[in-house]
């Protein structure tokens, strides 16, 4: 009887349901995160039996002596800014188009979504071949147009390599934004759209004053996910350029990996990871708070 009473308590039920997930979360997410923070204050190469405590030296080295860190930082900022602007914009345009009753709509949705389910490293391999300056698709197209001299070293020229890699990322990620926006568009109140049209609103006015406000929550989700995924951008850059040429396409996540798993300087790699974590939290938390407040005000 007493057991039934305990089990009927909603708090107990919540604890029972959340408990296993919480344990997994603590073991596989919280503990490694704390471990990385702790490791960032040590010098360790994975071989020495003892980790040497160095205080904030890893952070000082990263900020003042590492010739690649600030390049990676700048690239991460550029990549994030572009990721927040371009794929969501294209995704929204595609969603608006594919929300119309056009022929082959479902097939087109599947086609645009397809790159999302391809592994990033496979996308990188495909695009590396397309970017090959001698035999690649883009080079061949330019050559067939008589513009051979204009074929750039897409991934080898430090001035354009980051943007070439970003092109592949856009191709891969745009379908994800599209699907989220499509889902959001299903929640747009049709009677409001009709009412706006009866009141004489044009396409742009309907979009601006009816559709877009209804997509506010979706937009927040898309942008937050875009920020998080771009700040931790790793695999596609790794597969396309490996951070080169001359570390000019390094990203913070990739540089942290390089330091830890290729150079085996676990302390410095951890310090870069902590910086990345701090940057991510500094960007995402204020944005989420701001958008939450905006939504509450709108309600």
């Amino acid at each position, binding site marked *: 009887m007493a057991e039934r009473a305990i089990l009927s308590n909603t708090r107990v039920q919540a604890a029972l349901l959340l408990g296993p997930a919480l344990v997994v979360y603590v073991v596989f997410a919280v503990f490694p995160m704390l471990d990385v923070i702790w490791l960032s204050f040590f010098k360790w*190469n*994975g*071989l*020495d*039996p003892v980790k040497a405590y160095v205080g904030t030296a890893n952070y000082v*080295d990263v900020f003042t*002596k590492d*010739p*690649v860190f600030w390049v990676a930082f700048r690239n991460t900022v550029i990549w994030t800014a572009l990721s927040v602007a371009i794929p969501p914009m294209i995704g929204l345009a595609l969603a608006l188009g594919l929300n119309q009753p056009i022929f082959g709509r479902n097939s087109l949705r599947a086609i645009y979504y397809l790159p999302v389910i391809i592994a990033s490293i496979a996308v990188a391999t495909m695009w590396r071949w397309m*970017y*090959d*300056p*001698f*035999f690649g698709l883009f080079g061949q197209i330019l050559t067939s147009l008589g513009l051979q001299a204009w074929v*750039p*070293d*897409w*991934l*080898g*020229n*430090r001035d354009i*390599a980051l943007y070439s890699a970003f092109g592949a990322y856009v191709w891969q990620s745009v379908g994800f934004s599209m699907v989220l926006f499509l889902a959001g568009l299903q929640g747009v109140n049709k009677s409001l759209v009709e009412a706006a049209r009866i009141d004489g609103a044009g396409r742009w006015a309907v979009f601006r004053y009816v559709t877009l406000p209804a997509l506010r929550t979706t937009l927040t989700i898309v942008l937050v996910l875009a920020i998080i995924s771009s700040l931790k951008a790793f695999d596609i850059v790794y597969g396309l*350029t*490996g951070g*080169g*040429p*001359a*570390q000019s396409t390094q990203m913070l996540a990739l540089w942290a990996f*390089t330091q830890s*798993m*290729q*150079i*085996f*300087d676990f302390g410095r790699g951890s310090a870069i990871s902590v910086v990345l974590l701090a940057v991510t939290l500094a960007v995402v938390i204020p944005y989420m708070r701001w958008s939450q407040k905006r939504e509450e005000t709108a309600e």
Partner: protein
Amino acid sequence: MTKFATVTSAAIAAGLLLVATSLSAAENITFWTLNFSSEAANKAFTAVVSDFEAANPGAEVTVVTRGTDDHKTAIRVAAGTDKGPDIYFMWAGLGLGGEYVKAGLSLPLDKYYADYKWDDEVVPAAGSFSRMYPGGRHGVPSSLSGEALYYNKSLFAKAGITSTPANYDELVADAEKLKAAGIPAIAFGGTVNWHVMRLMDVILEAKCGAEKHDALTAMTVKWTDEACVVQSFGELQKWGKNYILSPFMGIDDSQAFNLFLANRAAMMLEGDWLVQQLAEAGKIDDIDLFPFPTRTNRLYGFANYYYVSSKSKNPDLAAKFLDYLLSTPVQQKLLGVSGTTSINKNVTYGELRPMTKKWLDLFNTHDKVFLNGDQAFPLDITTEYFRVINEVVSGNMAPADAAAAMQTFITNKG
């Protein structure tokens, strides 16, 4: 108790004692290495292990193979425990292999070198790496790789080049002749940093000489104090601007090789492993090779080694297995399966391709080797070396700034 029961009990007890005795005599070693390059190599190595176990009752060798990165990680993870291997594969040199030696994870093998007389069996150039570590000799060679300039004979002829260059200046003069004939002199793939690095390594050897080059890689002299360093970076930049098939920073070594096969460039700086690839591509008759003319009489290359772990509980058995592995009959069996040439100088070769024969001569006539930069430097310095080289060869960094960047990084490392 009946007489039958007594006899049976005694027999069982004797049997158990025998088993216990044999178990206590059993010795086990684990051997961690890279995945074998082919199924044939895998089978051949398995047979070697079985033969060793058969010849040494009670000995058991457990072989664990992994991919390159997995192997590196596994070794590093195992380093902090007592669960590691008795024998492990690692590259030779102060970079990768040296790091483990420095951390005290490799057992000095001087005693075994003397007892088993390994120097009488090993190709001198391959064995030379065991002497480069402080505190004794470490590891035994598993393979030796050399790198040299492969050249397209018809493209050389087309440019009017009739003999191979005897020194660096002649090589540059030949590159200039090729350029004048509209032929890019050499192909490299820049996405894999170590490919262009080879050119910098050999230029440093040519311009600085053996002793200074070694001091530079050992970081015992300052990169900013040696005029030859700036000269070398200058030469590298010259090659990047004038003689390397462009664009090259956005392609990898295999793409560069395809371009070389397609006669788009006259030379490649590649290893002895290219012979088989050239044969498979049907191009072996069109190509020949010569060592990069550094004039230091040292072969450019690297070696793969097997090290005995300092944590091994059976170092004697590990050494005995290595002795068996290095022995002439075993190496004779492995020849052609896990490599075209052997690290054992006593194996006999049958009918060889002229190019393989040339490599064999190079291995046998050079008793000194200078290492690839990424094997010679510690890992963090290697990463910076790659960055600086790529900046210079792309024309984005002045040679003097490159020398300064290298020295600053080395100084900051402390």
